[in-house]
């Protein structure tokens, strides 16, 4: 590209050297920066490849098809030491997603409760919420994780003296064991019933709100939805001859056998991330609610709307516009903080990747996979939240 071509047909003629034209200068600076960046990336890449070759280190992603040879304690999909490294990474990835998604849901619920609690007129609730926020916000997340993990390990009994909970559940320092449902033939109808119930509920809710808009009559939405979502599957379960049985945990030689177990690693990471992030979300929620002009509340009260309905229908919808953008950052933080799992041995992407890195020595490849996965996760969360934000945003006329 020649410089001449970049001179725009400006309003004023260049008075002196074209180098004094700010637009041309801009182009030149950007060009130089881009060139330097490309050169830097090129230099790093070729140097790395060259050095790996010189050090006789194998490179490439072919190793992902190799036999893993190690076992993973917590896995959502079937995994044995005969599975591939690639599958091990998928196991780690799913574990990361699991703790991130459950953590985000819990953190949001706790965060909203505490955030609204801080604004409560009840002195005790407000102060308790404040203490919660100040404590959790000011401790590093790793310490919170250690706190829960050591707490879980130190307080809970050995497997032989497991605490029995209702519904055949047991808790000990190996985790929470609960009966695992075994789906026999015919149980698929229950699943179908659930799906039908949910779809029907959505249609009913829409119909109800339309009806209310037109006639002002309110239909019993809550009870109908409950009936459809819970009642229908239960009815099907009874009609199909109770096809679900339960595999109950029983004491084995070392651990409880049978049933499903949620390990203390997951529990402590999940609790720590939820409680830690909830403190930040609480503050965001408080800021959002405070950000809605008090005149809105007064106007609602003047119209005779009750306080509870005012919060739900007037304040919170407007507060959401302020809340969502910073909330996105907290979700991303929680997802990224989940990589602290490695400190307590939860098999997340970083932990499993680290194991593979060590067994194969493919440091560059594994680190690149980590970067790509976390980047993709974060960008997807961002995209979703941007979409949600756009939906909630003020519709300007």
């Amino acid at each position, binding site marked *: 590209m020649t410089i001449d071509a970049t001179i725009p047909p400006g309003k004023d003629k260049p008075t002196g050297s074209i180098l004094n034209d700010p637009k041309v200068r801009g182009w030149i600076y950007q060009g130089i920066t881009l060139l330097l960046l490309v050169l830097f990336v090129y*230099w790093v890449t070729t140097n790395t490849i060259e050095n790996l070759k010189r050090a006789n280190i194998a490179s490439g992603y072919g190793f992902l098809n190799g036999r893993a040879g*190690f076992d993973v304690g917590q896995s959502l999909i079937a995994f044995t030491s005969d599975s591939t490294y690639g599958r091990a990474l998928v196991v780690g990835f799913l574990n990361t997603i699991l703790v991130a998604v459950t953590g985000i849901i819990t953190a949001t619920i706790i965060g909203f409760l505490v955030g609204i609690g801080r604004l409560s007129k009840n002195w005790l609730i407000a102060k308790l919420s404040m203490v919660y926020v100040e404590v959790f916000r000011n401790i590093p997340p790793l310490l919170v994780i250690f706190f829960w993990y050591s707490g879980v390990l130190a307080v809970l009994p*050995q497997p032989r003296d497991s605490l029995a909970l209702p519904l055949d559940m047991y808790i000990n320092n190996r985790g929470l064991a609960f009966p695992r449902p075994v789906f026999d033939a015919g149980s698929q109808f229950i699943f179908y019933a659930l799906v039908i119930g949910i779809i029907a509920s959505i249609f009913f809710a829409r119909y109800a709100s339309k009806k209310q808009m037109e006639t002002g009559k309110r239909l019993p939405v809550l009870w109908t939805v409950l009936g459809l979502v819970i009642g229908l599957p239960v009815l099907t379960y009874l009609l199909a001859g109770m096809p679900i049985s339960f595999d109950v945990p029983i004491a084995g*030689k070392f651990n409880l056998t049978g049933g499903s177990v949620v390990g203390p690693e997951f529990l402590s990471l999940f609790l720590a991330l939820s409680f830690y992030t909830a403190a930040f979300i609480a503050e965001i929620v408080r800021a959002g609610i405070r950000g809605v002009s008090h005149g809105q509340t007064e106007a609602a009260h003047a119209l005779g709307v009750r306080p509870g309905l005012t919060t739900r229908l007037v304040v919170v919808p407007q507060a959401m516009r302020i809340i969502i953008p910073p909330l996105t950052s907290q979700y991303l933080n929680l997802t990224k903080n989940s990589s602290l799992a490695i400190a307590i041995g939860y098999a997340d992407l970083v932990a499993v990747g680290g194991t593979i890195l060590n067994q194969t020595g493919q440091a560059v490849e594994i680190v690149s996979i980590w970067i790509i996965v976390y980047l993709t996760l974060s960008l997807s969360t961002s995209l979703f939240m941007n979409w949600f934000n756009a939906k909630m945003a003020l519709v300007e006329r």
Partner: protein
Amino acid sequence: MAKRILTALIGAAVMGIGAQAASATTLGDVKAKGFLQCGVNTGLTGFASPDASGNWSGFDVDYCKAIAAAIFGDATKVKYTPTSAKDRFPALQSGEVDVLARNTTWTINRDTALGFNFRAVNYYDGQGFMVRKSLNVKSALELSGAAVCVQTGTTTELNLADYFKANNLQYNPVVFEKLEEVNAAYDAGRCDVYTTDQSGLYSLRLTLAAPDDHIILPEIISKEPLGPAVRQGDDQWFDIVSWVHYALVGAEDFGITSANVEEMKKSTNPDIQRFLGVEADTKIGTDLGLDNDWAVKVIKAVGNYGEVFDRNIGTGSPLKIERGLNALWSKGGIQYAPPVR
């Protein structure tokens, strides 16, 4: 950890330029900077652990000191880089450390795909299991259903999977990155079984709250030849690291100790004369790029192999590990040094 991998990556990238600018050999580099950068364990009693004032000691640490003594005649010219099982290899690959003396098992994968060289085996080890006495377990074959604590990124982790699979036993791995975390988890009762190299188990048992409540099961399920590792592509450096070990073993064979090495220089035995570099016109050290009396310096610094063993992990230490396989070949073990000739 992440920081170290990043350093390794940048190191890998920058190495090209660095290597061209400085001397082409590791020995040259080490001499130029004036000290040996040695990768050791983060803390394994008897093998490598720092004391309250930050002075390192242990079996592997003595190898670092011995190599430094061979090069500089001064065992203190070592800087230690504590590495976890996971970041030890990037540290060596990137050139962050000159030699990795970190109870590392010699395997074909590490010798080839990872780009390292092993030759001297300073400790013949094997993987074992430790359990609480109260479990009443007498053999590893009774461990089906147990939760097993293991350090990630080790051959141990792989042997464990293979052993349980081969014997059709179920287990639940509880995996940590750092040795201290594995210890804490086992001590807290998170798992029933602790598995690592047997030497490690003896060392770790000492750090538990009640060492006498734990027993080490008789089974050894793997071969774990431990030894110092170097990067491929520098044969001279590889030779130096290997021969420092052989000098230690050779010295024990000849009966040379740190106490009598000066007297032994007057020995009339030609083998010993050659070994200690007192033979006329010898090139025994210069061929390695060292001084001819390098073996003397090594022995003065740390003693012979038997002394190093006893002081750190053997009868003279709290670990009290038997020499076993690590006795000299002439005494029923398999420690054997090639002739110095």
